[in-house]
């Protein structure tokens, strides 16, 4: 199944994740077939993410290999209810890819090699619920709610692998401003996607976006 199809997601998202969870459970039990199944399902997405972040085909292959070995070894760490299997796996790919590009930058601290796969995004994930009702225009509209500087800060962080400190240096912006741009940008996306005013941005709205 092509994981990038938007239209079908409403009906299929949960059955895809059930199937992913079943495969991941088999991976935990040491079934290579199940790893192959997950790889086949997400290899294109995984490689594309790694390639976009590293801009280097060979390095992207290494990243995907590391990530899937990390998934193979640590499948038991996936926690149901903290996001879909897909989100968990792709977060591991993302994390590894960022590690890889940071390692290429001599000024950055070198991360631990065999650190467990990241965990960072093992938090609730609204996306699979939200995506059901969205088409590309709505997605574009959500993106359009961000100011240019918010979008730039988020892109440099997520796709560029920069730390917020590095973003501040790169863009000649105070760290505090970078922090609020990233935060308000994410909150703005959340509001656009979920249609929810949750008050988290109160008192900061309008600041940092310029």
């Amino acid at each position, binding site marked *: 199944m092509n994981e990038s199809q*938007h239209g079908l997601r409403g009906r299929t998202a949960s059955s895809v994740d059930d199937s992913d969870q*079943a495969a991941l*459970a088999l991976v*935990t039990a040491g079934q290579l077939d199940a790893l192959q199944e997950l*790889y086949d399902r997400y290899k294109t997405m995984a490689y594309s993410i790694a390639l976009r972040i590293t801009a280097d085909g060979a390095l992207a292959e*290494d990243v995907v290999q590391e990530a899937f070995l990390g998934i193979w070894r640590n499948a038991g760490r996936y926690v149901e209810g903290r996001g879909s299997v897909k989100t968990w796996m792709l977060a591991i790919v993302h994390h590894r890819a960022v590690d890889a590009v940071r*390692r290429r930058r001599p000024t*950055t601290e070198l991360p631990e090699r065999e650190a467990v796969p990241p965990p960072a995004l093992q938090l609730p994930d609204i996306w699979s619920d939200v*995506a059901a009702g969205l088409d590309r225009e709505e997605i574009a509209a959500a993106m359009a709610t961000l100011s240019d500087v918010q979008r730039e800060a*988020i892109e440099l962080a997520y796709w560029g692998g920069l730390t917020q400190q590095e973003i501040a240096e790169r863009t000649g912006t105070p760290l505090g401003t970078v922090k609020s741009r990233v935060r308000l940008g994410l909150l703005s996306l959340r509001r656009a996607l979920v249609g929810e005013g949750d008050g988290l941005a109160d008192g900061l709205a309008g600041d940092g976006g310029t």
Partner: protein
Amino acid sequence: MTHSEAIDRAAAYVLGALERTEEAAVREHLATCAEPHAEFEALSGVVPALLELADLELVEPPAALGGRIMAAAAADLAANPRAGAVTPSAAASRPTPSAAWPTPSIPTAPSAPTAFPSAAGRAARSERNRTGRFDWALRIAAVIAIVAVGAWGLSLQGQLQGAHDQLEAARHFDTAIASVIGAAGQPDAKTVILKPAEGATANGIAAIASDGSVVLAMRDLTPTSGSQVYEAWVIVGEAAPVPVGGFSVDSDRTAGFTTRPAEAPPGAVIALSLEPSEGSTVPVGPIVSTGIALAPASQNG
């Protein structure tokens, strides 16, 4: 890290935009602090959407990558057999998310021998009898476990800075292994584990493809000099060794090589000798490595 310091870093944390040491400190905080962390939950939920918002260009990975990953996983399994135990999750020890993000009714059970959610558990039981498509991979993995650990390290670029030759050798071997795995997946393919002969170090794996050619991945070979070649031989029963092709080896001490096709039924011996020159019809140089062709016990690929 204090609660407010953690909250201050929430947005950068969910985007992966902290130094990894700082990220670890935040994670540690989340695992131990009982205060609510609504900010993290609100922000992290949006992050998967960035993938869709990015208009990511989808690119297929090279076909060989899947084989490399499966071989490395098989080797990892051979080196670290699973007892069915699940490592308790660090994440599972975190405080329950706030009511806005309810956990599902099936709790994870870190201390249970298997922590499958029930749907997955059912699937696991129903699929447990499935024939292993990767029996061959497991078999070769028993021998290449150390290799795969090397490949794992290899993929961690930078660790081998300054060891360029070693890196190249590992890459060379990695590529050769991928070819072996490709051949091993063919119908009626056989696998061979090549062990060093007495006094030699050469070792590796091979697969005999459907057409009878032997695809070899060898390492720790003494480099050839002058007209020397490594010749591969197929020996069936009492018959005379059949030469199937030779190759030279440079300072990386590694070789990937595909021989001419030959009749090599299960039980045939594959041998490698170091010949003084090309074209030997009987082995005259020392045998450096041998192995026996094994038919995969159950292979449905």
